[in-house]
């Protein structure tokens, strides 16, 4: 188990980065909505290129750090990784959100490359499409994760229950 001097900085980093991830998704949604609503060619170009930059330099680093700091935190504290349902559920949701983000990376990069091409017209740029389903869906998933992490709903897994039984037996002694 981590001592408090180590646990607290990791916990603070995890919270700050996870909330930052949500903020970066919000910025991405703003650009994504612009690609749907704007008719202006410079705005469309800037939005697609901006989405790529936000993804590469904010979303991906924040997602990877949030996921890995969550792993480290659960393994180094009493919560464990597979002992409590709320940890298992948030782990699965975070892994899914990160995986979807990584799968979308080439799509977002391709659109940014197309947007940088001077031969592309405003209509061509609009036809590139949007990622609103993924970006808004991703924000909702991150919101659900945040709520579960704060509330920490009760519920031991079968593994967690067995570990608790073993620890209770060893505390009683032979």
């Amino acid at each position, binding site marked *: 188990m981590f001592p408090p001097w180590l646990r607290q900085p990791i916990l603070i980093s995890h919270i700050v980065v996870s909330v930052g991830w949500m903020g970066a998704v919000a910025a991405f949604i703003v650009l994504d909505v612009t690609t749907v609503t704007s008719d202006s060619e410079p705005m469309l170009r800037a939005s697609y290129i901006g989405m790529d930059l936000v993804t590469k330099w904010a979303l991906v680093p924040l997602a990877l750090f949030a996921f890995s700091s969550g792993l480290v935190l659960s393994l180094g504290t009493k919560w464990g990784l597979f002992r409590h349902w709320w940890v298992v559920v948030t782990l699965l949701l975070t892994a899914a959100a990160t995986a979807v983000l990584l799968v979308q990376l080439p799509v977002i990069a391709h659109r940014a490359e197309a947007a940088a091409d001077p031969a592309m017209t405003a209509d061509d740029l609009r036809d590139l499409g949007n990622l609103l389903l993924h970006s808004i869906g991703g924000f909702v998933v991150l919101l*659900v994760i945040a709520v579960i992490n704060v509330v920490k709903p009760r*519920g031991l897994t079968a593994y967690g229950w067995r570990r608790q039984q073993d620890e209770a037996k060893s505390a009683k002694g032979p």
Partner: protein
Amino acid sequence: MDGESPPGVPLWVKVLAGIVLAVLVAVVVLHYMGRMMLHH
């Protein structure tokens, strides 16, 4: 506690799993419906 059976899956996990599954099915159905409408 000795001899008790391990706890089952909590209700909130089942409800959340149901919502996630329903959303995934709805997204897949809407996606294919949209593609079919585009082809016709």
